[in-house]
């Protein structure tokens, strides 16, 4: 009972902290100076249509590298925590296995499309990565034997992460800064091969996120 009162007090207290923000909130009419530069720079400097992608992959690239790392850590932590046990497999119908295999290939293709077009359309490495993971989820749920794919997955996860870092390093070697996407010619505005290294980086992000999420799902969904 006392606890309930304290909970109520806590919530009411938080509410009264937030209330002035809601009451006095005054929406900006214009972009901040920083955003203005991003919007302009995305076109002028990076040749990327999607400003959010420019910000994520280039301007705040270090954040994204960190973000991928966070996911990686979660994978490692969950793998560390939930040691896999071998369980007996149910055998699903062949039709289901075949169709889900086919479907998952389609989903993976779609995922690749999303992350390689991150600089042009909404979406990018993370969303594409989730697509890939969901394809594997499909396979997992329909009990397709994933044993073989495990090593490959691990390699994809490790190498895509390492390549991401290496792409960043090239900028450093060329002394134009870590994670600079201008290491590759900027290309023509609006094309798939434009915006410098952004599609490349986003592809690695996509692959890495995809394999990481697959690993998480595998660890948590496995028997």
């Amino acid at each position, binding site marked *: 009972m006392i606890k309930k009162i304290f909970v109520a007090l806590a919530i009411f207290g938080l509410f009264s902290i937030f209330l002035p923000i809601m009451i006095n909130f005054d*929406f900006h009419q214009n972009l901040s100076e920083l*955003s203005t530069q991003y*919007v302009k720079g995305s076109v002028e400097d990076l040749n990327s249509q999607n400003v959010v992608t420019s910000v994520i992959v280039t301007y705040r690239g270090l*954040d994204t590298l960190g973000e991928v790392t966070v996911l990686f850590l979660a994978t490692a932590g969950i793998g560390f925590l*939930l040691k896999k046990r071998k369980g007996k497999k149910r055998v699903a119908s062949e039709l289901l296995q075949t169709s889900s295999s086919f479907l998952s290939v389609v989903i993976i293709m779609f995922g690749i499309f999303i992350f390689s077009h991150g600089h042009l359309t909404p979406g990018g490495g993370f969303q594409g990565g989730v697509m890939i993971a969901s394809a594997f989820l499909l396979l997992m749920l329909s009990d397709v034997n994933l044993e073989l794919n495990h090593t490959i997955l691990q390699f994809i996860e490790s190498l895509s992460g390492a390549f991401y870092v290496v792409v960043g390093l090239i900028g450093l070697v060329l002394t134009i800064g870590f994670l600079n996407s201008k290491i590759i010619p900027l290309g023509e505005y609006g094309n798939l091969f434009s915006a410098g290294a952004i599609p490349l980086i986003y592809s690695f992000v996509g692959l890495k996120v995809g394999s990481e999420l697959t690993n998480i799902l595998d660890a*948590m969904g496995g028997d």
Partner: protein
Amino acid sequence: MIFALILGFALLLIGIYGMLSQRNLIKIVISFSIADTGTHIIIVAIGYLRGRTAPILDKAIDIANATHKVVDPIPSALVLTAIVIGLAVTALMLSFIIELYKKKKSLSIDDYQELKW
């Protein structure tokens, strides 16, 4: 967008309330993810500018005048990161719960109080 802002704060408070009042470990994590969603909505709401479109400068937008046409891209970029991090934390929390459950067969937070004082 003030309504989205209010919605965000409401979800945040509901989530925190859930974290404080629910005994079930999984419910606590659910509440946590609701609070997280609330936070994300707040952030996106802050970045919104009335009557503007997404910051994707394709043919539909006059590039020269783009700065007056699009919403703020920074909050979007931040939220994107935050969502992924939220997933990572949630998944880790849940795997802790699975392990805890293995040890003690209980999902109530009241059953995990051996360490105290």
